[in-house]
């Protein structure tokens, strides 16, 4: 066959155009064929240590600039998009940022309470002081262990013994169990009589000059801390993390010197969703400058691990004083209430001003759960990731919070060794009260179906996280839409309304439904489940589960709470 006969009466130039267009069309078609689910979905581990980050350099931040930038400039991308680092099950894969712990497997109460600590609190009497603590407002200094490892000691404020140190260890235990990287922290007693100063220890005087540290310097530091009745000083002993410090991470953008850091932080699920934990624990100081990046690994294969850092300002503790009443309720500078107060000459009274706090123990600071509203909770100033939190991010966080039983919370609080009567109970009771409010606000914000399974013979089971947590009454009805799913094109076909199935009592294994037999030969099946509940109209938005045939079994590969392909009814 000649080309002329194939394309009669056309010039060579025209024929070339046609061929080129055909190639382009083919190429585009091929690109659009990127599968919805790769063979390794859902990704459980994001290997963000793959490329060497050894060229990353330390970066130091300014508190004033950070405040001004976030208050006045609104940095970061604020599009209302789905978190960019979730896997196809809408979960966070393990990475240098986050390790699924309580969310992936059962943790014993002991494990939760132990937190990041590898051992019991060490004795530090003979550990030499090597330098003064270099940053932050809390007085302290650094010591070296007999193994040569560096630790930092931070003192409690004189008016509130046990307050900041308790906050530190409680915060670290919770954040660790949730999945964040935190440094090891212990409560220790400093005996002034057994303090040893390394001859090479240094401090920086008020003229900015580094000089040898003296006993007088230590005494001045101790004078800024809370002295116990036995003459000792209680402190938090924090173990320096492994690796080389690189400063902090921001809650927006990516580190430009880290090849592995590709997801904008303001769209990372574990940072957007950390607003839930911050609200629960009143971690109002949750900002970039209270984070830590550490460069780890052997030369040529180094990576950056990202830490949550400094929990001295959580719950009722403001590190050096009790938490101010504004904390958690309003940004340092929030125009609306400020203008109202200005314009009315103070006749407008912000509601949080009138909150009563329990004053039974100095070590508690200001911590309460009655006025607390998780949705209205605020950090010290705007946090781009927090501001981007979607209902799905919040649900993810709330599910993790729901994993902490009353017993686990009390065990973590006990770790702080509060000595004042009633202090531990107040902290634990308040955490429980706030946890329940968090769950009511955020575990119910989306259709809360989780853990869907499709058995070999096509029986669907799932759980309702809100009902299981005891936050919501049993569900009245579930409605299912089954369909065949084309993984290559993303198209759905043969949609079948399976009718309504009455909900069970909400107990495990949750509700069940049978997939239409005619779909069971498909490599991928989808089911969108709408939940009909009189108290939560939002649950009628479908959760779409996708199952992939794996041999004789079905594997859950997809969960989407934002699926717009299913019309809400």
């Amino acid at each position, binding site marked *: 066959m000649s080309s002329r006969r194939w394309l009669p009466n056309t010039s060579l130039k025209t024929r070339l155009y046609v061929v080129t267009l055909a190639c382009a069309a*083919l190429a585009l078609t091929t690109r659009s064929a990127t599968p919805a689910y790769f063979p390794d979905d859902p990704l459980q581990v994001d290997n963000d240590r793959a490329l060497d980050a050894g060229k990353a350099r330390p*970066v130091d931040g300014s508190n004033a600039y950070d405040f001004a930038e976030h208050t006045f400039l609104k940095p970061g991308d604020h599009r209302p998009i789905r978190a960019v680092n979730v*896997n196809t099950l809408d979960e966070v894969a393990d990475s240098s940022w986050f390790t699924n712990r309580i969310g992936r497997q059962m943790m014993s109460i002991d494990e939760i309470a132990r937190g990041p600590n590898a051992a019991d609190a060490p004795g530090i009497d003979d550990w030499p002081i090597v330098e003064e603590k270099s940053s932050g407002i809390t007085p302290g200094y650094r010591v070296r262990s007999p193994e040569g490892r560096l630790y930092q000691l931070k003192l409690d404020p004189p008016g509130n013994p046990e307050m900041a140190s308790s906050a530190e260890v409680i915060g670290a235990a919770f954040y660790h169990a949730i999945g964040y990287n935190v440094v090891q922290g212990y409560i220790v007693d400093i005996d002034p009589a057994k303090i040893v100063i390394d001859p090479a220890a240094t401090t920086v005087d008020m003229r900015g000059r580094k000089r040898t540290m003296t006993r007088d310097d230590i005494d001045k530091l101790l004078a800024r801390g809370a002295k116990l009745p036995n003459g000792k000083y209680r402190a938090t002993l924090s173990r320096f993390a492994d690796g080389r410090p690189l400063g902090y991470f921001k809650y927006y953008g990516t580190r430009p*010197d880290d090849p592995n850091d590709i997801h904008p932080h303001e769209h990372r699920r574990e940072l957007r969703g950390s607003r839930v934990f911050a609200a629960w624990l009143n971690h109002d100081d949750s900002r970039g400058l209270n984070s830590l990046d550490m460069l780890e690994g052997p030369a040529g294969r180094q990576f950056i691990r990202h830490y949550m850092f400094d929990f001295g300002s959580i719950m009722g503790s403001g590190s050096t004083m009790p938490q101010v009443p504004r904390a958690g309720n309003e940004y340092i500078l929030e125009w609306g209430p*400020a203008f109202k107060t200005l314009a009315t000459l103070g006749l407008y009274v912000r509601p949080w001003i*009138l909150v009563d706090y329990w004053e039974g123990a100095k070590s508690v600071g200001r911590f309460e759960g009655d006025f607390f509203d998780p949705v209205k909770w605020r950090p010290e100033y705007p946090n781009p990731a927090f501001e981007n939190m979607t209902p799905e991010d919040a649900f993810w966080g709330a599910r993790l919070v729901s994993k902490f039983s009353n017993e686990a919370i009390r065990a973590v609080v006990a770790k702080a060794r509060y000595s004042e009567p009633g202090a531990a109970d107040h902290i634990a009771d308040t955490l429980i009260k706030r946890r329940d409010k968090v769950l009511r606000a955020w575990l119910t914000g989306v259709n809360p179906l989780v853990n869907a399974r499709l058995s070999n013979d096509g029986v669907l089971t799932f759980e309702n996280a809100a009902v299981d947590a005891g936050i919501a009454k049993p569900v009245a009805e579930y409605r299912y839409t089954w369909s065949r799913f084309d993984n290559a094109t993303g198209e759905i076909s043969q949609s079948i309304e399976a009718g309504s199935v009455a909900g069970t009592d909400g107990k495990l294994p949750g509700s069940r439904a049978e997939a239409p037999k005619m779909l069971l030969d498909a490599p991928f099946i989808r089911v969108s489940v709408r939940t009909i509940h009189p108290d939560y109209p939002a649950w009628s938005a479908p959760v779409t589960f996708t199952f992939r045939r794996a041999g004789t079994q079905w594997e859950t590969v997809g969960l989407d709470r934002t699926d717009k392909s299913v019309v809400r009814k």
Partner: protein
Amino acid sequence: MAHATVVWFIAVAICMCAPLFVYAQEPATRAETLQQQREEKARKLAPPAQNRLERTLKDLESGRLFERLLNPAEGLYPKIGNITTGSGFSVGPGYRHAGMFGGHADFSTFAAASFSKYWMIDARLQFPRLANNHVAVEVHGQRYDFPKEDFFGLGPDSNRDDEVIYGLANTVLGGSGTVRPTGWLNLSAGVDHLQPTIDATAEPDSLLSRFDPSQAPGVLVQPDFLRYSAMVDVNMRVPRGNPRRGGRYAVTYQRYDDTDTDFYSFNRVDIDLQQYVPLVRDRRVLALRARAAMTDADTGAVVPFYYQPTLGGPDDLRGFRHFRFRDRNALLLQAEYRWEIFTAVDGAIFYDAGKVASRREDLDLRDLESDYGIGFRFGTINGVFLRIEGAFGSSAGAHFIMRFGHVF
């Protein structure tokens, strides 16, 4: 024909290879997808960028530069602020040396001058931590020149249009001691040698161009004085620098001994009562103040005009010029309603009233001069760094005030 065949062959080959080429770019797994993105980023790594402002602020913070420069415990620093009421903005070098004599003593000195040609040199050696911080002792020396002090005449009926100026220079040498039995009680006593001099003729609008010497006692001759003072100060304000509750009640007695002629010897008593009524959980405060200053000359003596109590200016009658009223006795009543607007800014509306009188029994509530106004205070819960106020309603018109530190 052969050419066309070749072209077709190439085109078809490209067409067939295109998908392969594309497939070569497309990852086969999610992990590969992410890896590709990371490799892409690895090709354009850059150091973290910080703009100049951020770098500067970071350096200032990490080096505690503001603290070191503006208010260091030791070393050189710029002395910034007001030397005295009416001096205007002043600046000069300051120096502190802490921990002398085994850590017991602190030395400080400064020299500052303003654009209004006011200047002051001050040096003091303090022992602030004696007897387990219950006792403080200091010796001090001071030389100052205030060349443009306002004078409107004596008495409550002085005329705004009679404003003239005079210069007051002084050398002060003395010492004082304070006992602090508790945190809220200070008992102080001191003695100073004063060498005041008055310049009432240097400027065209100077004092003697409008007033005769009988209207300004002491304008022609200024003896040296020995001033003895004793003070009881009950300070229960919380917090001290920006009070929300509590009060301060201070009484000071001073004896001015004219060491040259006895003609200007007198006694002076100052009473300063402040009360802070907390409202709305300390977020609003009603601040009240009553201050009285009374002088009593020895028999046959007079109180020199430059040591007589005054009213007027940014700290008392804010709707009037500095030292607008002057006489042997003065009464000041102030009320402020302060409300927190946000963390670092308070608003305030205020009312000031006061009078001066030649006789103590005339210090009553009749014929008070008064003003009112509104302002903003910038600082922290523990102190006010700057206040900006507008004072109105006085017979002297509106006054705009910008001043470092609190009013009371």
